[in-house]
């Protein structure tokens, strides 16, 4: 039987589970009165980020996240929206990364970003069908509330140096990925919160502490699963951040991109909102107890 694709055939169980997970995510949000939306995947530009590169597609780019169009929908008055779509990020490939991956994003107008933590807790418990999950031999207790740890505390607990020193010595990523991340969400899911303002991206700063951003990330089993913002709704500040990021991109020799003008224009009409992006492939890895992202998608780029 030459030519028979055994690798693909062996993925049957995971692909069935994946399909079921997607159906249940849709039901979860639809039952909570969220509107499922679709936005174009080929767009003129993404929100500029120094460390995220888009894939070019003709005279446009493929979106790295649907965030800009999602926030335009919010600004136009849509209250609760979600989207499940493919996103593309150039040259990201590893055991937890695919250059083309599936993202779930959901947004709530007039909500605090802590409401998204409640959403995460309920979604996880619903999808796991129990209060416990087994990930690579480790039981993970899903009983809410999940653990909350500030980024600073996480460094104190797990790293050989402080967050401040790691940032000053330009080794934040190295220390974080090797010393901190593997310990996060080991026995119960962990929300990492209180990111420094310098790591705010599209998040607004905390009203009572402008050195910190309204941003959290969800970790389960040492794996980053989701990133959430109390959305920045101030177009002037957002433009400054974009210009700053775009300038750094150009300085490091990356392809220049225009700024997303329609987004910046319409942002003024948004007063308060919270939004979150969750990697579906990693969620499926967790629920299928698969150590590699390769096992939970039908085809990896290398298999095409």
């Amino acid at each position, binding site marked *: 039987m030459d030519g028979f694709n055994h690798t693909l055939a062996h993925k049957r169980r995971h692909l069935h589970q994946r399909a079921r997970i997607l159906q249940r995510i849709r039901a979860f949000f639809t039952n909570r009165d969220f509107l499922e939306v679709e936005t174009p995947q080929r767009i003129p530009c993404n929100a500029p980020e120094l460390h995220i590169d888009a894939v070019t597609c003709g005279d446009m780019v493929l979106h790295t996240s649907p965030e800009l169009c999602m926030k335009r929908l919010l600004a136009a008055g849509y209250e609760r929206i979600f989207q499940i779509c493919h996103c593309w990020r150039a*040259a990201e490939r*590893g055991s937890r990364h695919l250059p083309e991956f599936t993202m779930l994003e959901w947004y709530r107008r007039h909500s605090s970003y802590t409401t998204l933590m409640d959403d995460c807790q309920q979604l996880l418990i619903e999808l796991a069908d129990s209060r416990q999950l087994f990930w690579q031999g480790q039981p993970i207790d899903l009983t809410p509330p999940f653990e909350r740890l500030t980024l600073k505390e996480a460094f104190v607990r797990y790293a050989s140096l402080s967050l401040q020193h790691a940032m000053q010595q330009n080794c934040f*990523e*190295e220390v974080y*990925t090797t010393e901190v991340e593997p310990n996060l969400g080991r026995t119960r899911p962990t929300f990492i919160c209180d990111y420094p303002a310098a790591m705010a991206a599209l998040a607004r700063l905390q009203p009572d502490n402008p050195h910190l951003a309204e941003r959290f990330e969800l970790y389960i089993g040492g794996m980053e699963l989701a*990133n959430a913002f109390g959305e920045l709704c101030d177009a002037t500040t957002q433009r400054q951040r974009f210009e700053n990021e775009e300038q750094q991109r150009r300085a490091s020799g990356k392809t220049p991109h225009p700024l997303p003008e329609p987004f910046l224009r319409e942002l003024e009409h948004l007063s308060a909102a919270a939004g979150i992006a969750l990697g579906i492939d990693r969620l499926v890895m967790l629920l299928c107890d698969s150590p590699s992202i390769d096992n939970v998608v039908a085809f990896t780029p290398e298999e095409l």
Partner: protein
Amino acid sequence: MYNCSDLKKGLKIIIDGEPHVIAAFDFSKPGKGQALYRCKLRNMITGALFDRTYRSGESFEPAALEERDMQYLYQDETGYVFMDSKNYEQISISEKTLGDDKYFLVDNMEVKVLMYNGMGIGVTLPNFVNLRVTHSEPWVKGDTAAGNNKPATVETGYTLQVPSFVDEGTLIQIDTRTGEYITRVKE
């Protein structure tokens, strides 16, 4: 030159002037942060294994390695001596560099020697080798704890598990990739 996106398991690159092979590789990227390329590297000369993390923007020199057909001659104080089958040039490879492969070398065996800068840094052995058992305790009937296998030592000093019916003096075939017993050889 290679850049970070070329890094993958099995790639051979020069680090600090010496050839290294990537034994394990993963890509990581904390949310919104820099991409990191985490490698487990093996020094192809010393065999030393260590971790190294790279950031995008770094570049790597490919390790120019060649394979030459050679014959194993003998062991002396310099190490294990091989002769190039074409030009009869002789080279020596140290015991440490050869690692466990030294146990599967028999006189006049044809091997492929991996060369770097005129230096032999490893061998590719035939998949199977025949070696004579020089020591093995007779199997004690009823010793079920050990199953049907028992330890045996072959002429090169290598010790492995063999079936209970293999006696001292028997010529056996060993898989050099796994180091495991395959079968008895009829003489």
